[in-house]
């Protein structure tokens, strides 16, 4: 096995081009488990922890440009205001030790349907920036997930950054697990209200082959808020709206039975989480007036 240790982003892209079968490793919270249990024996590891460009975040033309190697711990301490949904999701990741090492870029690279950051990134309509020696491309995060633990990366590409517009409205994140700490989600849900665009963003986790948005539910809610003038009046939600939104989120999921939970429980919990997330978000929206 080779151990490639680039010192810069340019070197990292060169290394990935020369060794397309190298497995990128940052926090190691997924890759090392596979190595320790001998379920994966890649020809090379590409250690990205020396690439300073990846561990920085910046404000760029009104967007947060989150380097792929920024840890959950730093999202929580440094970006709670700019990326509230992602910060809430980050607080539910593993344990302090895991949050100190694990990165949002790594969560995308692993592309597990249960990854904690995905519902928040989907709801915020984040973009992913992918790069190789031949150039850089950006895509909506919803297009990045292509299958169970599969993503849109070409063999010579690395994840450079995640681009997220700071919120114009409230964001919420809910996760169901068997305890609070050290839990892989049984199901998860992210919600973002975008009053500037009169739009709604959602993200479903652990309840479909990939993380996905509940687009019909988004349109239903945005339209309902629009028709009743609620974006401006911020009056109480009409009775049943949150429940109906939850039912539509549930309809967008396609879960399976597995060791962590049944498909039926995942569907039920999603409907409940969506209803609660909307209730909490609307409460935040009213208080922010």
């Amino acid at each position, binding site marked *: *096995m080779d151990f490639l*240790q680039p010192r810069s982003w340019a070197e990292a892209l060169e290394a990935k081009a020369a060794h397309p079968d190298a497995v990128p490793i940052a926090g190691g*919270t997924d890759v*090392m*488990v596979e*190595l320790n249990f001998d379920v994966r024996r890649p020809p090379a590891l590409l*250690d990205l922890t020396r690439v300073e460009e990846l561990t920085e975040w910046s404000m760029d033309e009104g967007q947060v440009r989150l380097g792929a190697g920024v840890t959950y711990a730093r999202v929580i301490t440094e970006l709670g205001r700019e990326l509230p949904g992602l910060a809430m999701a980050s607080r539910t990741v593993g344990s*302090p030790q*895991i949050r100190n090492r694990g990165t949002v870029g790594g969560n995308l690279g692993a592309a597990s349907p249960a990854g904690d950051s995905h519902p928040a990134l989907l709801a915020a309509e984040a973009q992913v920036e992918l790069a190789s020696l031949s150039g850089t491309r950006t895509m909506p995060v919803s297009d990045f997930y292509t299958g169970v633990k599969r993503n849109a990366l070409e063999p010579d590409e690395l994840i450079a950054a995640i681009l997220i517009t700071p919120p114009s409205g409230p964001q919420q994140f809910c996760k169901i697990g068997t305890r609070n700490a*050290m839990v892989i989600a049984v199901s998860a849900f992210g919600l973002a209200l975008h009053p500037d665009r009169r739009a709604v963003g959602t993200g479903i986790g652990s309840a479909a082959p990939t993380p996905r948005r509940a687009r019909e539910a988004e349109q239903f809610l945005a339209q309902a808020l629009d028709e009743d003038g609620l974006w401006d009046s911020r009056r109480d939600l009409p009775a049943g709206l949150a429940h109906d939104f939850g039912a539509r989120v549930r309809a967008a999921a396609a879960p399976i039975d597995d060791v962590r939970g049944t498909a039926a429980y995942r569907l039920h919990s999603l409907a409940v989480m969506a209803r609660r997330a909307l209730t909490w978000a609307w409460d935040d929206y009213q208080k922010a007036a």
Partner: protein
Amino acid sequence: MRITTTVNGEPREIDDVWEGESLLYALRERMGLPGSKNACDQGECGSCTVYLDAVPVCACLVAAGQAQGRDIITVEGLAERDTLHPVQQAFVEAGAVQCGFCTPGLIVAAHDLLARSLQPSDQVIREALAGNLCRCTGYEKILDAVRLAADRLADASASGR
């Protein structure tokens, strides 16, 4: 491959490191530092918690090569010669140790907490130790130990020692 690091203040150089092995394996099997325990090998239990550049991490999830040139402190590096660190002493006195397998990780996690927060609430202690599993004690004595260490460190800090 060859890895050079600083471990508990001393420069260390180890050879023939397999590229896929963990820092935990390197510490235990190559550097003679078995304090950090290998219980789960997947970041679930916290028994292998060490400081990597002053940040607590699971050593089983760090590739040994990622530790190249870094500064590592293990549980063996917390005592001053024969004098236990107050966190270690508190674990002994509070009866927070039963089988002892989780203890090194809990000591490092509690050490980190008390370096950041002198008078943590129970909620803060629980959150700080959430990544460390103990199957013997039921955690009550561990919480007692952290509170005891917190009180002593706060007293020491107040008296300027």
